[in-house]
């Protein structure tokens, strides 16, 4: 159990900067998820914490000690890999006990630790099998078991569920959550899956292009995204972005409109927004409600509807050709081409400074 501190950590491969100055504080016993699109540097960052990659500059502290130059084994970490990385020629028992065997741990202690890990992970019956006889989920369990017996200060998970099928992924996700409660150890977890991030994390670190976009609790990030990227990255379907003109600004509120949007006042949160300039309005699909065209704050035409039973996802083209999505929490029949009005609560909308929209959120 320990704290982890990253101070202005950077990583370059030759002339390519992969991590461009990252500061993260991880409290004792916290479950932190690094999330971001592929190539954002989240795995590299984790591997730097593990000691598998050198830190180009900045400091990494584990439990108050700078470990930049320490070997992986001396950092008090354990890592679970996406590909499990369990040794194919060893039984489950030998795999789990690997680190202890190498340290020449006394047999009795070794057996006790392996038995305890097997009990926690409910895999006592698998101990004498070989990896080739295990399913993907069981293999991942073995990898986690190997991490547990090390009694690490920090657990590192590198996309541990990516190789599992959807159903198993959910089981293992809950299992890892349960494990965190049982062990109450610090855990750092890398994923590109926002559902894993939202459900597991005490704290999410959103990364993009080697920079931290925002750090905060899942709900903080969801309800209060700091920028367009975070807003677009978390939530499914992802947030709608509508380019708007700023017509007025008073106190905390800015009034915005465009050809398809009736004037509305939205909190601007001191962002770089000027009267007469452009801004981007963000509204989550779930907060849009359909109304008769005349009553709508937004005006557009239905392009496509997807009826999922509990929810109807409507693809709407606004009058200014912006395409947005509304997720309506009831079963509704709408015809393509039909005029539609949409309303939303200004308190649930976000205003962002005008910048290029994120290319695509990973859904």
């Amino acid at each position, binding site marked *: 159990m320990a704290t982890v501190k990253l101070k202005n950590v950077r990583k370059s491969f030759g002339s390519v900067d992969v991590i461009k100055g990252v500061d993260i504080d991880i409290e004792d016993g916290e479950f932190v998820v690094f999330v971001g699109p592929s190539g954002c540097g989240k795995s590299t960052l984790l591997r730097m914490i*593990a*000691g*598998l990659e050198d830190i180009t500059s900045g400091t990494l502290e584990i439990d108050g000690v700078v470990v930049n130059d320490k*070997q*992986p*084994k001396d950092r008090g*970490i*354990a*890592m679970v*890999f996406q*590909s499990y*990385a*369990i*040794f*194919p*020629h*060893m039984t489950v028992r030998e795999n789990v006990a*690997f*680190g202890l065997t*190498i*340290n020449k741990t006394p047999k009795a202690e070794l057996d006790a630790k392996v038995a305890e890990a097997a009990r926690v992970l409910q895999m006592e019956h698998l101990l004498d099998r070989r990896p080739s006889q295990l399913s993907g989920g069981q293999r991942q369990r073995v990898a986690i078991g*190997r991490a547990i017996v*090390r009694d690490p200060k920090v657990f590192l998970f590198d996309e541990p569920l990516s190789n599992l099928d959807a159903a198993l992924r959910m089981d293992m996700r809950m299992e890892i959550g349960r494990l965190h409660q049982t062990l109450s150890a610090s855990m750092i977890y890398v994923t590109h899956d926002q559902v894993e991030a939202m459900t597991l994390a005490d704290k999410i670190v959103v990364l993009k292009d080697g920079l931290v976009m925002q750090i905060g609790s899942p709900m903080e990030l969801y309800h209060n995204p700091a920028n367009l990227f975070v807003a677009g990255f978390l939530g499914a379907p992802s947030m709608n972005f509508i380019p708007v003109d700023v017509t007025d600004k008073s106190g905390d509120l800015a009034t915005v409109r465009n050809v398809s949007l009736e004037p509305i006042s939205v909190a601007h949160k001191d962002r770089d927004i000027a009267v007469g300039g452009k801004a981007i309005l963000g509204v989550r699909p779930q907060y849009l409600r359909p109304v008769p065209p005349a009553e709508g704050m937004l005006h557009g035409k239905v392009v496509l509807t997807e009826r999922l039973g509990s929810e109807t996802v409507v693809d709407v083209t606004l009058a200014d050709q912006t395409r947005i999505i509304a997720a309506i929490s009831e079963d509704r029949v709408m015809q393509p081409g039909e005029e539609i009005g949409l309303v939303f609560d200004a308190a649930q909308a976000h205003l962002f400074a005008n910048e290029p929209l994120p290319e695509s959120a990973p859904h």
Partner: protein
Amino acid sequence: MAKGTKLTQSNRAGWAFAIPGFGLMVMFIILPFVFAIALSFTNQRLISPNPTQFVGLANYQQLLGVGMITLESERDDIGAIVFDDDGEAQFPRLRGYTRNNPDYPRIDGMREWFSWGNDESRTYVLARDVVFMKAIVNTVLFVIVVAPVQAGLALCLALLINQRLRGINVYRAIYFMPVVVSIVVVSLLWRFIYDGNDGLLNNLLSGLTFGAFEGRDWLGNPATALPSIMAMSIWQAVGFHMVIWLSGLQTISPTLYEAADIEGASKWQSFRYVTWPGLRNTAVLILIVITMQAFALFAQIDVMTNGGPLDSTQTIVFQAVERGYGKQDISGGSAISVILFVIVLTISLIQRYLTREKN
């Protein structure tokens, strides 16, 4: 098999396609193999006016016949051992027992292979074909030395060049180069290296020891001829096996090494627990390939020593060629081929059994 599958329907076309390849295999692999076995039971010669006759196991008896005899040393009238001028005990002449001696029909025609004993008695091991016995011993020695040394050296090289370093490909190419040069050319070159008068090796050793090393004729001395050929053979093919090891090394997932690293494994432990188990199948392959190649030792001998000096570099295949073509004794050569086949097959089976996948 289900009736009417594609395979049985297109039977005729299938055979038509298969026959050219199959025919070639029969003609050049299966037939010679069968011929070798069949001829080894006859007295066929390359050119002979006499008709070929079936002679049963005579060829094998001629090749593999061994016997043993223990002789008492000669004593004078009072029973004391007779010594010659050099102080050696005198024994009755062996020829008296192996030539037309009706009391010892089993060892008739045999010659001394090697012997041991003391002043009072001496045990002689006799062989009907001493040269062939030496060939077997030399070949086995060659295999015993070359297989582990070559495999081990190749593994070391593979581990060394399995790194991401600038210019590592140059090393790969250099180590592999001897493999693509014909063994005959390599043997010729090494004859110069081993030359007794002004050879490269002699010059090098004498230079390194500031003239203290006296040159020797590496291939002309029975004690150094076979080791010299071993060294050169190991050097020549090590690159080939290095490449096979390398391909095995590259199938091992790098994450396994990272996992071992995190668990605190030292370099040696990483090798012991990750690399070596991951190379299992490669190791079996390499061991079998090297063993078979080593048993087939011929070209080096033919170019460098012709089996000499004093038969110290005779090998099984060299004997087969020597007998079959040199002495025009096709049946004898065939018998040797069959013996080699049986030896190699047996060893391969043993190796497969010993290296089998447990559970």
